[in-house]
């Protein structure tokens, strides 16, 4: 407060840095998370080897691409809050206790505030929980990681878009607390859906027929399947570039649509806020 006028970008930058530092505080929890992602990585790697031994080329991946898919998804799932976690529970708690009134009173946009905080968290979890499992997976198994720096840059853009889509969906969950009060049930449902439809259990390209086509256009595909495909998609020369552009466009479209929906719901929700007492 003592600072004079802080630019908008500076404000949200500070919120994001706060989110990063907040999660960086818990070193043990991070180490425990790395351990868990690595253990799951090993377990799933053996099942993927068994599956791709039986059916080489399944889902358009060879075995090393399938293993890469799996290890990269282990590296991304904490950042994308695909198995729960993230800000939405805290948000719901603030709605339930009424603290949200204080948030609405701040001279900052509610959605942008939480987005900045969540991206800060995701940034830490990408580094803190993503890098080590991927390196261990790369040492223990034959992975098909690209070497071109541009491919990794495109991957990071795609990851960022995926994180925004993930935030935008979870923001809707947070807002649901204005009507439901207790968010436990809906959070659980949302976790189920994101585990299954993001491609974390199995790549979405392995899902059969029309159902497979359907799950590949849902927003959850933008959170995991698409970023990993962008990373793997460097093999084809011209087709690869067009496919990557399409993939990024797909993510951006979902991000814009869901953020917009969030704003609509937010304006409906804030009309419900009743400030008690005084």
């Amino acid at each position: 407060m003592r600072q004079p006028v802080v630019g908008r970008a500076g404000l949200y930058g500070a919120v994001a840095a706060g989110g990063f530092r907040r999660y960086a505080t818990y070193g043990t929890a991070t180490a425990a998370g790395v351990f868990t992602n690595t253990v799951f990585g090993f377990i799933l790697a053996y099942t993927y080897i068994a599956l791709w031994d039986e059916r080489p080329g399944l889902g358009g991946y060879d075995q090393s691409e399938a293993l890469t898919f799996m290890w990269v998804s282990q590296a991304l799932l904490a950042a994308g809050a695909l198995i729960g976690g993230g800000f939405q529970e805290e948000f719901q708690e603030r709605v339930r206790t009424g603290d949200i009134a204080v948030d609405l009173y701040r001279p900052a946009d509610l959605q942008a505030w939480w987005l900045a905080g969540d991206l800060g968290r995701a940034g830490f979890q990408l580094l803190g929980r993503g890098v080590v499992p991927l390196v261990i997976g790369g040492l223990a198994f034959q992975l098909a990681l690209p070497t071109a720096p541009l491919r990794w840059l495109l991957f990071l853009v795609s990851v960022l878009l995926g994180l925004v889509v993930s935030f935008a969906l979870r923001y809707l969950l947070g807002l649901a607390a204005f009507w439901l009060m207790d968010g436990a049930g809906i959070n659980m449902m949302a976790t189920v859906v994101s585990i299954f439809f993001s491609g974390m259990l199995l790549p979405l390209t392995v899902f059969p027929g029309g159902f497979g086509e359907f799950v590949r256009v849902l927003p959850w595909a933008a959170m995991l399947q698409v970023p990993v495909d962008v990373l793997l998609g460097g093999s084809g020369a011209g087709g690869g570039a067009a496919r990557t552009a399409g993939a990024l466009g797909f993510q951006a479209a979902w991000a814009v649509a869901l953020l917009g929906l969030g704003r609509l719901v937010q304006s409906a929700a804030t009309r419900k806020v009743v400030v008690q007492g005084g």
Partner: protein
Amino acid sequence: MAERVAEDGAVAAGGASAEGGAKAGGAGPRAPAERPAGHGLLVPRRSRVLEGLRGYGLIAAMWIRSTMTYRTSFLLSTFGNAAITLLDFVAIMIMFSHVDELGGFTLPEIALLYGSCSASLGLADLLLGNTDRIGTRIRDGSLDTMLVRPVPVLAQVAADRFALRRLGRIGQGIAVLGWAVSELDQLHWTVGKALMVPVMITAGAAIFGAVMVGGAAFQFIAGDAAEVQNSFTYGGCTMLQYPPTVFAKDLLRGVTFIVPLAFVNWLPALYVLGRPDPLGLPGWVAFASPLVAFVVFLPASLAWRAGVRSYRSTGS
């Protein structure tokens, strides 16, 4: 079946807590009162088990009542709990839409592995799963409150926020198991094999329960490390739903001799399915699960006891 198993698991919980709570949990009012009666050590010890069970029951009942206040949320979360495991199984079914066998096992055989370990983990999670919150409790100081209450600490930690929605996972696991058993009619079911199924679920729940208690004890040293425990429970269950033939031998040795997860369902299920063990262990190990379930509680409860005794409040 679930009913009987539930009682079993609760006894295990009370047993361990009696060990842990006796020294550290702020002596309850009843134990000292009974000691002068001159029955030696056994009577107060036993009464602490009962006390732990009673406390557990009261706390759990309170949480069930509170859960029922938000009924829609409860129904959604119970359904969600069942759906999580169902979607796991759907993923396996999608795999089997492309292949006929995985690691030499058919879909009904994998369903047997899947259903039994899911039911075991669900039971353990319902009865003892909340012990993984202990790291948070140590951090925010709420464990201190529990130490001064006249109920064994483990019973309080396990029953606090008792989540009835976890019935969803148990029900789902048992449903898949039922389907597997109905599909495996060519197996020549004997009385021994039929009995093995409920024994496997109960013993498996107890082994997972011991891992949870041990993992909670680890958090006294490590702080907020709930996820380490998850990698043995949830990760273990993910592994156990696939056939052992899929995994590397070293991994199999690790989960047989170090953290004995193989006894949760692999070894008994291989007997039921009439398949050889990839490690070539003697046949009797299939029947060892209940024994292993008792044995693993020894290090787990010792670790818990050591954890509670070494606990120093954060003091803020």
